[in-house]
């Protein structure tokens, strides 16, 4: 029982990890926590759903198309809502993302209705044998796709100009600006990239339950928990944190309480913030004055 729970927990965790990566990415590049990230992912997933239903393209193609779809949603959102707030106090941007939450969440209900729809899965739920444990093919597929995204992200940050500029900006915005990094471009890239990644996470969750306008909220909460566990400014930390959350959640639901399994993320958030606010993996550095 436990190995299966762990593996499906890792699968859940890697879905959270994708959303957490989006959150951390935007936070690092622009200092904004995007509360609407989950809802943007949900809308992207609905767009993919419509595309699937209308065109009958193979699911794999849709999964690939999710990236430009998400990117576009992110870019447009950044331009329209975040750009005008660039020089305003950070709390204003935070409030704006809450406005975005409302727009995307209820907008989806308005456009696609409130009834859950079935979303086909790329992978079958049949078990396969791995090292003596029987795990669902589905879980392996999810972990695989997430791993691919993380690998692409790694290449982006290590080897591309845009990626290196983003890393510089996240370390010291002013210094990066002086060195000629275009901060507006960094923000735009971060939103595009983050939303693309988050839509992939949406496509991975949707087949597990049904697709509806509420689907990403619980995921967002767990992504927050995982990201905080990882210190909120480390991409690796966020991934590890989310994997931990996914596994704990599964074990918690199986052995302790299924009805509180969504709120347990909150308990973890509070515990981490109280005991080790800098996260498990990073050291706290005092503000420089």
């Amino acid at each position, binding site marked *: 029982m436990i190995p299966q729970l762990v593996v499906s927990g890792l699968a859940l965790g890697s879905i959270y990890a994708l959303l957490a990566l989006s959150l951390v990415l935007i936070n690092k590049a622009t200092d904004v926590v995007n509360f609407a990230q989950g809802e943007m992912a949900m809308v992207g997933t609905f767009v993919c759903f419509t595309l699937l239903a209308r065109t009958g393209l193979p699911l794999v193609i849709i999964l690939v198309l999710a990236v430009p779809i998400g990117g576009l949603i992110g870019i447009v959102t950044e331009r329209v809502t975040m750009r005008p707030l660039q020089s305003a106090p950070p709390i204003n941007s935070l409030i704006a993302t809450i406005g975005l939450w409302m727009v995307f969440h209820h907008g989806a209900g308005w456009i696609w209705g409130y009834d859950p729809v079935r979303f086909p899965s790329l992978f079958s739920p049949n078990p396969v044998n791995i090292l003596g444990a029987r795990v669902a093919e589905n879980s392996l597929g999810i972990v695989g796709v997430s791993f691919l995204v993380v690998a692409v992200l790694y290449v982006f940050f290590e080897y591309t100009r845009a990626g290196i500029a983003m890393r510089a900006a996240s370390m010291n915005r002013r210094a990066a600006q002086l060195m000629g990094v275009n901060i507006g471009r960094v923000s735009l890239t971060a939103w595009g990239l983050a939303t693309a990644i988050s839509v992939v996470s949406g496509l991975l969750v949707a087949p597990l339950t049904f697709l509806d306008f509420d689907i990403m909220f619980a995921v967002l909460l767990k992504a927050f928990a995982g990201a905080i566990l990882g210190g909120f400014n480390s991409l690796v930390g966020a991934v590890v944190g989310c994997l931990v959350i996914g596994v704990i959640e599964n074990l918690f639901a199986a052995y302790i309480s299924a009805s509180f399994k969504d709120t347990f993320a909150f308990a973890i958030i509070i515990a981490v913030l109280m005991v080790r606010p800098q996260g498990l993996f990073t*050291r706290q*550095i*005092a*503000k420089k*004055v």
Partner: protein
Amino acid sequence: MALLELSGISLSFSGLRALSDVSFSVAESQIVGLIGPNGAGKSTLINCVSHLYRPERGSILFNGQELVGRSTPEVAAMGIRRTFQNLELFREVSVRENITLGLVYRYRAGILSDFLNLPSARAMRREANAETAAIIERLGLNDVADVRVCELSYGLQKSVEMARALAGRPKLMLLDEPAAGMNPEESRRVADTVRRLRDENGISILLVEHDMRVVMSACDRIVVLDHGEKIAEGTPAEIRNSPAVIKAYLGEDDDHA
């Protein structure tokens, strides 16, 4: 007994040694200069004393009491006030409000009186306002008292920060580059102010400053930091002729203008 006694202070940031094993002391009513090239760790040291940073090793005695392990406001309430290299003012409010906020911790009515505006809360406000007015008067800030700080010139903002620190009736003031960005005339006035703080109010001062004329004319003793280590300590005359100091400064040619 020294007023402030640092011994063996060390602190590093993600592997980078910002301070290593720094020890020196500031006596009652003494002005001690702290100099060194950019990045030597001067601001970090001031942050350790005012307890924004917590040193990893070492002890800081103030009036014989250990500071390490206390909170920032506790240290402030014990009589240590500071200014900041890059100004940390309450920018959106008036000069008057900035100064009041510097002394408000001494005038506290209970929270219930504050909610209900009871006579005790009003009395506290009256006293704080009177003291603020006196400081404004004494420092000649009357003309700008009700102007928002963000509308003032850089030089005036520095004076406001100094006034706010003074409002805390400190025994020790930590000044982080009070003359930075000033012309020679203004710098001379800063040096005068620093001496007056000591002469008239008996305040001890730890002064970080790049401008050598200010340091040499104002300080009784000078401590030199380089790469987080204390490389020299002595009277201005001794420091001027110290080979170690000359070497540290000549090694870096960009910041003793």
